[in-house]
C-alpha cells in the first residue's frame, strides 16, 4: 500500500510529461503543416521562371524549390504575403505574378472579361426582346393568302373569317 502510494506521484508526473510532450509534438506538427500550406498558397501565385506555364507551387525545378524555401524563410521571419510577393516582383517584374496586378495596362485583363460578359448578356437580352416583340406582332395576310391557308388546312377557302388581331400561336 505504501509502495503504491510512493509510486503514484512519479507515475502521474511521468504521465503528465508524456502527455505534454505528445501534445507539443502534435502542435509542432500542426504548425509545420500550416506553414507548408501557406508556402504553397503563396507559391501558387508565382510563375516558375524556368518552366513553361507552371507555378512555383507545381514545379520541381531547382529554382522553384529555392523560391519555396525563400517563401518559407520569409514567413518564419514574419513577412506578410504581400511583402513576399513584392520581393519576387522587384527581381522579376510583374511577369512573375500569375495574376496580373490590378493597375495600369493589367487592368485590361481584369476588366475585359467583365465588359465582354456585360455586352454578351445585353445582346442576348436585346435579341430575346426583339424575338418576343416580333412573335407578338399581328400577322397581316391578304385574302388570297388566307384562302390558301384555309385550303391547305382542308377548310372552305371561300369562307370569310371575322377580322381579328392577336398572337399567331
Amino acid at each position, binding site marked *: 500500500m505504501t509502495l503504491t502510494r510512493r509510486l503514484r506521484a512519479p507515475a502521474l508526473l511521468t504521465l503528465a510529461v508524456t502527455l505534454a510532450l505528445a501534445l507539443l509534438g502534435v502542435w509542432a506538427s500542426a504548425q509545420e503543416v500550416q506553414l507548408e500550406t501557406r508556402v504553397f498558397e503563396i507559391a501558387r501565385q508565382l510563375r516558375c*521562371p*524556368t518552366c513553361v506555364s507552371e507555378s512555383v507551387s507545381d514545379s520541381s*525545378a*531547382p*529554382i522553384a*524549390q*529555392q*523560391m519555396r*524555401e*525563400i517563401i518559407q524563410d520569409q514567413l518564419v521571419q514574419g513577412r506578410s504575403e504581400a511583402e513576399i510577393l513584392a520581393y*519576387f516582383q*522587384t*527581381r*522579376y*517584374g510583374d*511577369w512573375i505574378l500569375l495574376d496580373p496586378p490590378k493597375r495600369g495596362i493589367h487592368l485590361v485583363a481584369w476588366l475585359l472579361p467583365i465588359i465582354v460578359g456585360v455586352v454578351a448578356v445585353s445582346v442576348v437580352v436585346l435579341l430575346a426582346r426583339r424575338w418576343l416583340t416580333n412573335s407578338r406582332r399581328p400577322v397581316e395576310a391578304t385574302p388570297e393568302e388566307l384562302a390558301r391557308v384555309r385550303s391547305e388546312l382542308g377548310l372552305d377557302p371561300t369562307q370569310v373569317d371575322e377580322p381579328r388581331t392577336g398572337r399567331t400561336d
Partner: protein
Amino acid sequence: MRLQRLLIPLLVVGALGALLVFGLLRGAPDKDIESVYLGQSAPGFSMELYEPYHSEYGPTFDFAEYAGRPMVVNFWASWCLPCYQEAPVLQEYWRQYQDSGVLFVGIHTQNRDHHADGLTFLSQFGLSFPNGYDPSSEISIDWGLYGVPETFFVDADGRVILKHIGPVTPELMDQQLKAMLQ
C-alpha cells in the same frame, strides 16, 4: 441588308482570328522579357569560387570588390546544352579582352549538389575567368534569372546595359564589349 447583318459577326470572328495568328507567330514570350535591372544598378552578390580560381581571386568572389570595372556576368549550368555551345566563345573573348579592364565572371547555378559536374565543365573548356557556384540559386533569383544560359552586361558604373537570354555569339560579344569599353 444581308451584308450589314453579317458585318458584326464577321468583324468579331476576324478579330479573334487575327489574335490567334498573332499569338501563334509571336514566338517564345520569355525572350521578350526584359530584366527589371536594365539601366539600373546590378544587384550585388558574393559566392564561393571553384578551387582553380582561388590562387588568383581568393576563395570568395565579392561583386562589390570589383566596382568600377565593366563586367560580363554569365549564368550557366553543367546540364545545360547551350552553355556548352557558348563556353568556348566566352573563353575566347575573355582571352582577347582580359587586359582591357573588363571582367568576366561565371556563376554555376540551378544545380544543387553538382559541384563536381561544374568542375568538369570548367576544365573541359579551360575557362580561365573566375567561376563560382550558386548551389541554392539565391544569386540567380536575386538577378531575376529565367533560365540558363543568361548573360548580363554591366557597365563601369555598375548598371545593367543588357541581359541576353540564350548562348552568347561572337557578334553579340563584339558589339557589347565595344559599347562597354567606349
